[in-house]
């Protein structure tokens, strides 16, 4: 199913349905079962993933075996590891599927290759890059300066339905707090808002 990615491009570029369909026609779809790993540390894969359905997770594992979640990618999100997808260096991270997931594989050469069909695509690529940097800047600031509650409130704004799809410990890992702190935050919010 490539029409979701075609729509994604169409909604961000001044192009026709036909141009969008032609642009994505060369791309491949991949389905991944819940729990299956898409990228391992050490892998060299010059590709990014657009999520058609399901949910991906981008994370590292430290020396003590603890997981640290950098990013979630639900439907309509793109996910990639820049080391391998841009710089041809081995990845240091994992990408796995938290739910049964279908992705469009966007190879590194996709954007240059289709610039003849859609010249604006290079600008979109730059905009997406800026957006990604903005996201990481905000996230970094949250991790350095925000309280657990502020981090949680920011999280539910960005990913409203993930609280229904992801176990508590994964949300805690993303927020850089313990599951106990997350429980406390949720309990405090309930005290404030439950009538």
């Amino acid at each position, binding site marked *: 199913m490539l029409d979701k990615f075609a729509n994604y491009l169409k909604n961000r570029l001044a192009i026709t349905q036909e141009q969008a369909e032609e642009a994505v026609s060369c791309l491949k779809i991949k389905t991944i079962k819940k729990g299956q790993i898409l990228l391992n540390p050490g892998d060299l894969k010059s590709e990014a993933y657009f999520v058609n359905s399901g949910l991906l997770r981008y994370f590292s594992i430290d020396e003590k075996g603890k997981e640290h979640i950098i990013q979630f990618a639900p439907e309509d999100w793109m996910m990639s590891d820049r080391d391998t997808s841009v710089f041809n260096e081995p990845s240091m991270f994992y990408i796995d599927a938290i739910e049964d997931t279908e992705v469009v594989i966007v190879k590194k050469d996709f954007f240059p290759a289709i610039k003849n069909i859609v010249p604006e695509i290079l600008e979109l690529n730059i905009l997406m890059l800026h957006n990604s940097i903005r996201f990481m800047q905000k996230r970094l600031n949250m991790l350095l300066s925000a309280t657990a509650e502020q981090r949680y409130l920011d999280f*539910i704004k960005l990913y*409203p*339905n993930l*609280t*229904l*799809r992801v176990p*508590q410990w994964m949300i805690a890992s993303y927020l850089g707090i313990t599951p106990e702190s997350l*429980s406390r935050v*949720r*309990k*405090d*919010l*309930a*005290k*404030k*808002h*439950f*009538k």
Partner: protein
Amino acid sequence: MKVKQVSAVLNPPAPHMVGDGFRVHNFFPSGYKLKMSPFFLLDYNAKIEFSARNQPRGVGVHPHRGFETVTIAYSGAVAHHDSAGNSGIIYPGDIQWMTAASGILHKEYHEEQFSKKGGTFQMVQLWVNLPAAFKMSTPKYQGIKQSELQKFPLPNGGGTIEIIAGTYNSVNGSATTFSPIEMYNARLNKDADVNFSFPATYNTAFIVIEGKVKINNTEIANADQLIHFKNEGEEISLFAEENSVVLILSGQPINEPIAQYGPFLMNTPEEIQQAIADYNHGKFGYLEE
């Protein structure tokens, strides 16, 4: 009065796990596309043996809004806790009717002693939709013990009809409902012959929990099969080919738009977004894992 014809006799769809405590066949809405409003979902945990375990299996804290969950125990035992402060254990023959309405958090686990011993487990869980006017009403909990269930003894030792909701032969059911619903457990001895009458417009299905039955003198249904009826005619005859237990469901459809996401069942996408936001902000209360 005309006979209400069978539209299909359906095998249970492939099972999936809900948490680690319920291995369910989802007859609808995903297993089969059936007209069953006001019943929105039917998960049938067919008989399964659980090994003994100290840490009870089940489903952790999760929210609901906009409907009711009805759990009917046939074998095994389930403990329930919710954010409105209700808790209870249901044993074989008991009913748990939880009105989530404006919002509740709950958790469901195998009861401790059952979990420690292990054994046969068989349950039905239904999601019963609420009319728009009651979707945001106060949550409610009805725990109905087997001994408290209203019953109609069939003549000639044919068995018993347990009236969970609605009315059978002038006996009113034990649970109160927000729209017209008929729900019975028919516990039939071999050769019992029972008749039911539901309005043609009511959506109707029988689930054979045990045994083997013949419907309207024609269709045979075995244990674990669901019999779905057409919206024509009123009269149904049920004959027990063997000692049988049959769950009878019939209800007046709620003709309102449906918007569903995960554990929320509302009328519009905006109400779903609101439910997610309210849940995230703690407006459903709090319940310890």
